[in-house]
C-alpha cells in the first residue's frame, strides 16, 4: 500500500516500459497475426468479389461517353440555351464536325449513338448514318458546317437533338436510375416514360410478390416435413433426409427441365388428370409458361433451404417441454401453439431469409418455365447485360435490387430481430 503511494506513476513492466503500453503492443501483435491468417481470404474476396461488384455498380451512374466522344461540342454547347427553341450557332457545328471526324476514325460514334438512343429514340440511326458522310469531311477546309451537317441528316436541325446531347453530357448521371423506375431525364427535368415503355416497376412488384408467395408456400410445405424429420426415430429420419437432400444435390437445370416435362399440357400431370377423368381432354390445365409454373418449380427448388434450418432448430426443442404441457392438461393444439411453435420460430426465420433472398434474384428457373408473365427482374437484368447491351441500366436495376434486399433485411431485423435466426 505504502509502496504504491510512494511511486505515484504508471505501473511498469519488467523491461521498464509502462504496463499499459506493453500490453497494447502485445495485443496489437496478436491481432496482426490473426489478420495475416485471414489475409488470403480477405484479398481473394476483395479482388474477386467486392472490386468487380463495385465497378459494375459504378456503371449505373457513369456517363463519360458523351464528354469523351464529343469533347469540343460539349464545351461549345455550354453557352447555348437549350430552352430557347433556337439552333446552336456555327461554333457548335464546327466543333461537332471536328469531334465526329475523330470519333468516326475511332469508331466510337456508334457507341455514343446507342447510348443516346436509350434516352431519345432515333439517335442511334442518326449517328450511324451521319457518321458515314461526316467522316469524310475535312474540318480545316470544308467549313462552314451548319448547313452541310443539317443537309446530311435533318435531325441535326432539330434543337431537341442538341438539348439531348447537352442534357446527357455530365460525366455522372442519374439517367439510368430514372430509367430503372420508368422515368427519364429530359431537358425539362425528370419525367415519366411513355406508357407503353413502363414495365420495370411492375416487374419489381411482381418479383417481390412472387418471392413472398414462394417463401410462404415453402414454409407451409417445409414445416410438417421438418417436424416429422425431427421427431421420428433417427434411423427413419435419416432415410427421409436423403429424400430431401437428393434433389438438393441434383443440378438446378435438370430439376427445372423436369418440371417442364411434368407441367406442360401434354405433360405428366395433365395426362394423369385426363386419365383419371378429373379434367376434360380439351380443357387441360395451363400450369407452365406463366406465374403458376414459376411458383411451383421455384418452391420445389428452394424447399431444402427451408427444411434444413427448420429441421436443425426443431431437433433442439426438448420433448420434455411438450410432455410437461400435456401433463398439465393442455390440449394438442395448445401444446403446439403455445409451447412448440414459439420455439421453432428461429428456424422459420432463418429459412425464410434464405429462401426469400435467393428467390428475389433467381434467374434460370423463371426464364425456363416462366413464359412472359412469370419472369423476374433478374431476367430483365440479364437481357440488358447480354442482348440490349444497356449495361448502365442493368447496373442500376442491380443496385436497386441490392438496396431492396438490404432494406428488407433491415426491416426483418427491426421487427423479428436477426438474433432470433438460427441455422442450427
Amino acid at each position, binding site marked *: 500500500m505504502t509502496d504504491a503511494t510512494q511511486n505515484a506513476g504508471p505501473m511498469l513492466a519488467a523491461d521498464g516500459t509502462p504496463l499499459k503500453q506493453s500490453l497494447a503492443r502485445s495485443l496489437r501483435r496478436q491481432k496482426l497475426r490473426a489478420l495475416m491468417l485471414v489475409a488470403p481470404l480477405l484479398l481473394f474476396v476483395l479482388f474477386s468479389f467486392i472490386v468487380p461488384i463495385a465497378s459494375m455498380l459504378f456503371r449505373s451512374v457513369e456517363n463519360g461517353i458523351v464528354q469523351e466522344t464529343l469533347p469540343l461540342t460539349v464545351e461549345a454547347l455550354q453557352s447555348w440555351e437549350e430552352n430557347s427553341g433556337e439552333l446552336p450557332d456555327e461554333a457548335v457545328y464546327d466543333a461537332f464536325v471536328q469531334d465526329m471526324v475523330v470519333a468516326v476514325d475511332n*469508331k466510337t460514334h456508334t457507341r455514343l449513338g446507342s447510348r443516346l438512343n436509350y434516352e431519345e429514340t*432515333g439517335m*442511334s440511326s442518326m449517328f*450511324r448514318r451521319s457518321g458515314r458522310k461526316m467522316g469524310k469531311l475535312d474540318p480545316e477546309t470544308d467549313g462552314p458546317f451548319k448547313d452541310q451537317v443539317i443537309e446530311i441528316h435533318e435531325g441535326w436541325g432539330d434543337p431537341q437533338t442538341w438539348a439531348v446531347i447537352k442534357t446527357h453530357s455530365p460525366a455522372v448521371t442519374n439517367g439510368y436510375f430514372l430509367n430503372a423506375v420508368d422515368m427519364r431525364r429530359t431537358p425539362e427535368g425528370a419525367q415519366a416514360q411513355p406508357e407503353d415503355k413502363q*414495365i420495370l416497376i411492375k416487374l419489381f412488384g411482381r418479383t417481390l410478390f412472387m418471392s413472398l408467395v414462394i417463401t410462404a408456400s415453402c414454409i407451409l410445405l417445409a414445416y410438417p416435413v421438418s417436424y416429422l424429420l425431427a421427431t421420428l426415430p433417427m434411423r427413419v429420419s435419416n432415410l427421409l433426409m436423403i429424400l430431401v437432400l437428393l434433389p438438393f444435390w441434383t443440378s438446378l437445370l435438370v430439376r427445372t427441365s423436369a418440371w417442364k416435362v411434368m407441367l406442360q399440357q401434354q405433360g405428366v400431370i395433365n395426362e394423369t388428370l385426363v386419365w383419371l377423368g378429373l379434367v376434360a381432354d380439351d380443357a387441360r390445365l395451363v400450369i407452365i*409458361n406463366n406465374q403458376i409454373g414459376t411458383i411451383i418449380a421455384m418452391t420445389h427448388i428452394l424447399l431444402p433451404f427451408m427444411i434444413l434450418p427448420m429441421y436443425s432448430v426443431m431437433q433442439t426443442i426438448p420433448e420434455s417441454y411438450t410432455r410437461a404441457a400435456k401433463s398439465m392438461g393442455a390440449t394438442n393444439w395448445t401444446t403446439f401453439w403455445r409451447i412448440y411453435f414459439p420455439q421453432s420460430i428461429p428456424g422459420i426465420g432463418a429459412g425464410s431469409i434464405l429462401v426469400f433472398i435467393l428467390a428475389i434474384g433467381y434467374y434460370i428457373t423463371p426464364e425456363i418455365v416462366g413464359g412472359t408473365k412469370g419472369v423476374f427482374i433478374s431476367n430483365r437484368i440479364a*437481357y440488358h447485360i447480354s*442482348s*440490349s447491351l444497356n449495361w448502365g441500366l442493368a447496373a442500376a436495376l442491380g443496385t436497386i435490387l441490392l438496396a431492396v434486399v438490404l432494406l428488407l433485411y433491415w426491416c426483418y431485423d427491426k421487427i423479428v430481430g436477426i438474433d432470433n435466426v438460427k441455422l442450427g
Partner: protein
Amino acid sequence: MKATKTLLTTAAVAIAAGGVSAEEMTIVSWGGAYSKSQLKAYHEPYSEKTGVTILNDDSSAEAVAKLRAMNEAGNITWDVVDVVAADAIRLCDEGLAMEIDPDTMLAPAPDGTSAADDFGDLLVSDCFIPQIVYSTTFGYRTDLVGDTPPTEICAVFDLENYPGKRSLEKRPINNMEWALLCDGVAKDDVYDVLATPEGQDQALAKLDTIKDSVVWWSAGADTPQLLADGEVIMGSTYNGRLFSVIEEQKQPVAMLWDAQVFDLDGWIIPAGLSEERQQRALDYIMFATDTQRLADQAKYISYGPARASSAPLVGQHAELGIDMAPHMPTDPENAKNTFLYNYEFWADYRDDIDAKFQAWLAQ
C-alpha cells in the same frame, strides 16, 4: 520457404497454361448440330493440315456483349467468332471486328472468280465473311392441323382454322414483319411501315390477336422440342433444326416454307489480336471459307453455302445419305415466296422496337 517456392512454381505453371500457346486457337460458335457440322467440315481438316489445336466455345449468342467486355478489359481470348449478319454489322461499326479484304484475304473460286464476286451481295459488312444462308421458318405438326395443312404464313394468325398453341421467338425481329404481311401490308412496304410508330403499333395489334396462344422461345432448340412433344401445333425456328426433327428424328412434322426469312451467318475476327494470332485467324478463314469447305458443311446440316460456286457441289447427307439440295432454304421449290430481312433497318431500329416489344410482352 520451400512451400512458398512450390506455390510460386504452381502459379507460374498455371499462368503459362492459361495463356495462349502458339498452337492453339479459340473458335466461337453456336454449339449443337451446327458446331458439329463445322467441326467435321472445317476444324478437323484444318487441324490435320496445320497441327493447330482448335478450342470450341459455344458463346455466339452473347458474342457482342462478351467481345465488348473483352475489348474494355484489353484481353481478347477469342480468335475467330461465328455471328449472324446483324451482329457482324454492329461489331464492325463499333470497331470490335477487324476489316477483311475479300480479294486478298479469302480464297478465289476454283474457276478463278474472285471471292468478292463469288460471295456477291452476301458480303453485307466489311468485317463479315458469310458461311451459310439459313432461314427462320415454320414447322407444323402434320397430325394436329386437321385435313387442310397450312400452305401460307398467315395460318399462324388464323386461330379459327388452326386452333392450338404456336411458338414464336421472344424478340420483335421477323414476328413484326410476318404480322404486317398478314395484316395486308405489301411485301415491299413492310419496312417503310415498320419505321413509323403507327406501323409498329399495327404489327403489335396483329400479334395481340394470337398473344394468348403463343409460347415464346429464346433458344433455337425450343420449337423442335415443343413440336415433338405436341405442345404446339406450329412454331418458328431455324430451318436446320426442323430438318433434324423431320429427317433425323422422324417426327410427324412438316415445313411451311412460305415467307421464310433469309439470314446469314458467318465469321468475324475480333479487332486487336496480336500479329501472330491475327495471321493464324486469317489463315483459318482462308481455309474454311473456300468453295469445297463450304459445300462440305452442307453434308452435315441443311443450310445453304454462302458462295455461289459451292452450290453445285452440295451432295448427300453424311449419315442419312439423302440428297441435301431439296432441304436447302435456297432451293427453288422452297424459295417460292421468301422474305428478305433488312439488316440495316434492324441495326438502326432495334433498340427502339425491342423496348416496345418487351413492354408489350410484359403487359
